């Protein structure tokens, strides 16, 4: 037996040994529960000062000035937020973040046994030929990639060996092939 195996067996033996528990433990635990929660420490003085009720008297003119000040601060904050926004709106700018449907994961597959490289190119990656390379399954010439897509309608094509554009044979053809090589179209349902 190796030294490592011996140590392992020894650890197992130790773990198997019964654990002795103090018989008075149960009694102490029950007593503690019956005694109720321990008294909280007194809050710091500053908390008491902040939470103390007080009456504030404001004159009508003072109230008006205070309201104007709050409105001015709100407008200032809004302007700052608008300035901080990027110049180009995101694609789903009209959809609030809380109501955005979750993207669907879509698998694209094409059979190209003699290809050295295949890329998925379309509306979803700004037609960038290097953004979404596809991976070959060993031996059978099947290339695939999965892409998360928001609900919508997308035009796309496969680029084989960096020069041959192919439509997806398993998807409808797009009609708007303004540049010659055909495209396919995919409609991703909303949830």
């Amino acid at each position, binding site marked *: 037996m190796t030294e490592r195996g011996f140590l392992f067996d020894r650890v197992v033996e130790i773990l198997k040994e019964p654990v002795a528990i103090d018989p008075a433990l149960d009694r102490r635990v029950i007593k503690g529960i019956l005694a109720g929660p321990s008294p909280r420490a007194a809050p710091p003085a500053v908390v008491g000062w902040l939470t103390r009720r007080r009456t504030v008297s404001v004159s009508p003119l003072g109230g008006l000035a205070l309201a104007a000040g709050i409105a001015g601060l709100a407008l200032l904050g809004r302007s700052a937020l608008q300035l901080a926004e990027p110049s180009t709106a995101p694609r789903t700018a*009209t959809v609030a973040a809380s109501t955005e449907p979750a993207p669907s994961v879509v698998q694209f597959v094409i059979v190209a046994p003699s290809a050295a490289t295949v890329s998925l190119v379309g*509306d979803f990656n700004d037609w960038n030929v290097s953004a979404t390379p596809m991976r070959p399954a060993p031996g059978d010439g099947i290339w695939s990639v999965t892409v998360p897509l928001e609900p*919508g*309608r997308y*035009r796309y094509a496969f680029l084989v060996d960096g020069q041959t*554009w192919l439509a997806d044979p398993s998807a409808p053809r797009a009609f708007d092939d*303004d540049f010659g090589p055909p495209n396919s179209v995919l409609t991703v349902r909303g949830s």
Partner: protein
Amino acid sequence: MLRSIIVLMCLAAVGPHWATAQEPRLVGRLTAETRVQVDAMLDSARARALPIEPLVDRALEGASKRASGERIVAAVRRLTDELQVARDALGSRSTPSEITAGASALRAGATGDDLAQLRRLRTDRSLTIAAAVLADLVAVGVPADTAVAAVLALAEFALDTEYLALRENVERDVALGASPVSALGVRVEAAAPQGDFGAGTQRPPARKP
């Protein structure tokens, strides 16, 4: 002096709007000359409340496919015109996705009147899927007028999921050897209460959702 300061402040305020806005995604993808023309078309489209995204995508597609600048500009211009026709037909309250799908339907052979009728039949529902399915049906070989008739026949009651199921069923039937027209006829007969696509049978009145 004061007048000069006021004029300068006014110029500073409106100055950025004088120049044509530049779409950052086109930088480095199009030649400077093509980009200027496309940016001008994007500005014009923005001013008419047309969706910009499909136009940018079309220009980027042309760049990836190494199309000439002239061809890219022509493609963006053509799509702009289609988006305008779709928006006019669908109404000013239509969403960008509805307008984009409407433009696809126009390219597939539908007319502005067809889209307007679709809007009338589906007043309170999105037209995106219906218009997209119309284009997809034409893509699998259904004649445009037949596809339009089928989509309009279902317009009053069909859910988006039913439109998508119709398209998937027709695609499957065609892949198995059925003719596109007969596949669509059978599927619409099954789905539409009042569908009459060759069998000549009238069904009970349409159910309302």
